[in-house]
């Protein structure tokens, strides 16, 4: 099934491309001399036909992009395949800096992007010429400059609105992602740091190192960390979810007094910034921290409990402390939703003789799962990357000789990645791990999202 789909996509791509190329050819052959010159000087046809605004815009963009690519970007673009060859060297005691692989890669990517944009604009330019010719041939009038401009606030208002956001996303999100993906295929690490050292392309070498088991590879550690990341995300998400729901239901009971007081107390944990509370709680459970000190003083234990130095204790403790932070959030969300469930449902269930657990299982839970399905998914993804809790509590420790590359028993992929870049300047492997994090979250999101009742059966609860 998938094979057929992919085949379709590929063949559709080539069909569209073929059609496009044919149209470009036709535009040239059938077009008048204005159109033909527009193949080289973008906007020429539009200018000659009186569409000054379009013509000037096209021309300006061509000049700008060409200047960026070949005036400024060429010095980087020309070295993109090698990432620089001139090493930094010394003349006497004076340093002469050579190529900077970092800038070559960054501006090289920008130049490639500029070329792609140019090709796209060139295509738009041809299409405009062809359309204009068509209109003139049928004896119609071309849209005037005034109507072109006016359309930006009317027919084409979507484009006006989206222009800046798209540009922003592109510069601040898409380009860095492309850059990071490229780093995964280079040897940018502690021994290859610009500006004094060059780095270069190494193909799939880093992926081999990450997945390799035995020898240079540290696949064992990678899968260990990945395993804990998934376990953590699972418990952190579902324990807080169900316990939060339990607390909300409990407080919602008619018999409970001072509802607002209880809610306020729980919400206090949200009011204190996590940076403060987590650091404190982390210290509280240290070997000489508050908890151990009191347990020792009261004589309940003889030696301090190794909360943070024993891998299993540390993992359990982190999940428990996360409950304390996570429950209030779930409680707040669930409290609102509980009030939305029609009371008649509960009433009729009671008349039918259902007990509290049955009403929960048959009415409350399905409703909650239906409404909060997407929320649970984002929570899960968020927990996969929950840097704060892990790092502020115990920095991913304890480490072990059995784990390579600085990893600890409570490290998530992201905290491991962080340590790798900050402590070891191992950017290449960090980039590979970044790609892996993306793959894990993407796969989980897609699979779960498509099987969620709220997506499959949108009207289920209406």
């Amino acid at each position: 099934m998938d094979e057929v789909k992919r085949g379709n996509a590929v063949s559709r791509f080539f069909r569209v491309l073929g059609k496009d190329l044919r149209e470009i050819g036709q535009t040239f052959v059938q077009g008048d001399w204005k159109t033909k010159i527009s193949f080289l000087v973008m906007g020429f046809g539009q200018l000659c036909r009186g569409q000054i605004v379009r013509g000037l815009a096209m021309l300006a963009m061509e000049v700008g992009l060409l200047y960026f690519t070949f005036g400024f970007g060429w010095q980087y673009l020309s070295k993109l395949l090698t990432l620089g060859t001139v090493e930094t060297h010394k003349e006497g005691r004076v340093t002469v800096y050579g190529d900077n692989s970092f800038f070559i890669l960054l501006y090289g990517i920008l130049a490639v992007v500029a070329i792609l944009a140019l090709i796209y604009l060139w295509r738009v330019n041809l299409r405009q010429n062809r359309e204009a010719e068509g209109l003139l041939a049928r004896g119609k009038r071309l849209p005037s400059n005034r109507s072109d401009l006016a359309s930006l606030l009317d027919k084409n208002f979507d484009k006006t609105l989206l222009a800046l956001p798209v540009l922003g996303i592109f510069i601040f999100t898409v380009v860095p992602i492309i850059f990071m993906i490229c780093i995964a295929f280079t040897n940018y690490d502690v021994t290859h740091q610009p500006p004094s050292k060059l780095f270069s392309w190494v193909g799939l070498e880093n992926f081999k190192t990450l997945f390799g088991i035995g020898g240079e590879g540290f696949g064992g550690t990678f899968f260990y960390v990945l395993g804990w990341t998934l376990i953590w995300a699972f418990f952190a998400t579902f324990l807080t979810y169900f316990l939060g729901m339990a607390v909300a239901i409990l407080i919602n009971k008619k018999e409970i007094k001072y509802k607002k007081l209880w809610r306020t107390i729980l919400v206090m944990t949200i009011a204190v910034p996590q940076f403060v509370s987590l650091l404190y709680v982390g210290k509280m459970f240290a070997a000489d921290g508050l908890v151990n000190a009191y347990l020792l003083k009261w004589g309940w234990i003889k030696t301090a409990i190794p909360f943070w130095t024993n891998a299993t204790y540390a993992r359990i403790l982190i999940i428990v402390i996360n409950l304390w932070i996570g429950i209030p959030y779930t409680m707040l969300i669930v409290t609102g939703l509980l009030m939305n469930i029609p009371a008649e449902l509960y009433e009729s269930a009671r008349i039918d003789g259902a007990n509290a657990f049955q009403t929960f299982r048959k009415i409350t839970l399905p409703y909650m799962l239906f409404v909060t399905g997407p929320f649970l998914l984002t929570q899960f993804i968020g927990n996969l990357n929950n840097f704060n809790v892990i790092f502020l509590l115990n920095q991913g420790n304890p480490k072990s000789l059995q784990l390579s590359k600085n990893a600890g028993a409570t490290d998530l992929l992201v905290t491991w990645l962080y340590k790798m870049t900050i402590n070891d300047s191992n950017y290449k492997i960090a980039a590979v791990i970044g790609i892996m994090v993306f793959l894990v979250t993407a796969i989980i999101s897609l699979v779960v999202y498509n099987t969620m009742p709220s997506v499959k059966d949108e009207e289920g609860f209406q």
Partner: protein
Amino acid sequence: MKKILALLLALVMVFALCACGQQAAPAPADKPAEAAPAPADKPAEAAPAAAAGTLKIWVAEAIVDFTKDQVAKFVEAHPEYAGYEVTVEPVGEGDAASNMLTDVEAGADIFGFPQDQLARLVAADALIELSEENAALVAAENDAGSVAAATMAGTVYAFPLTSDNGYFMYYDKSVISDPSNLEAIIADCEKAGKSFYFDLRSGWYQPAFFFGAGCTLTYDTDDAGAFTKCNIDYASENGVGAMKALIALAKSPAFVNGSSVSNATNAAAIIDGTWDADAAKEMFGENYACAKLPTVKINGVDTQLGGFGGFKLLGVKPQTDEAKLAFCDDLAAYLASGEVQLARYNVVFWGPSNIAAKADPAVQADEALSALGQQLAFTVPQGQYPGEYWSLAEALGDDIIGGKYNDADDAALLAALQTFQDTCIGYAG
């Protein structure tokens, strides 16, 4: 009207995106803006008048004002450098090295750093070697350990600033009767319900046991600062003995992992350095006392604990302009001279590395410094170690504290040390 509103909202969104985007990807977004103009600007700045420009110094926060005063004094005595505008910024020594490595071109021209960062800095070309006359001067005026620490493969890369980066024991006189023996200290602590602090997790403190037992762990480097060879014999009878002593220590209820007085609660003894002298004095009050590290029974023999002797250094960044390089050289040499070292001791109590400054009576009378002085006789000058070593030592420490080897026999300990040793060797070459 609605459309204008929508447009405004879209703009707001863009700004929001910009803000988020920058956070997510600081490296590509920030760097070009900051660093790109640097290479173009610098030569242009310095070219017209030989003695004009800016010079940036990074030192630890405690000595920022002191350094400012000294720079002013130096420029006064050398009017030929008056055209330079010197800024002194507080950057912790550990951070200085990482900041330099993040962006050499934007980094300080003169910066202080602990000598364990020397290899990283040389490898990244963030340090320029000393001129021949300065190198000779440094070698003649400072103690051998500090000179060795500033040297890599026969080349001197930095000026020694202090010779006080080592550890010894602060203790409570009223609790500990015999500070010379670890077993007795632990027994005293357990009896009094107090704690003994030692940072078993740290690659800096941990070797006290291994080096004491006679093991070695050093790295050879080439001219470029790359590690070529690891000399290590942890996987040996001595190593196993040291490991057993560490495990025994970790098992004691009195043991707490740590080396910072400010974090210590209920301490009777703590293995720490001179930087915590004031805090330790305050904590122990009139029972404050200092001693060299104790002995410990390793393979049945009372063995003096060893460790690292450490040093603070002052380095100069590679320069693209000759006149500025000369100023950097002279200023750094002045800031590291014996006279300034003694002045610095009088302000912030940093133990000097300069031989003449060391002989000063005020320095001689310092209790903590004299305990350190005794201990330094049993230490190895700390050479260069790859960054990964420090993490690996934490891993070994975590395994010991976590009780992984509590029931292990000699063969298992030897196997663990073999792993450690092989990994250390793997970092070289």
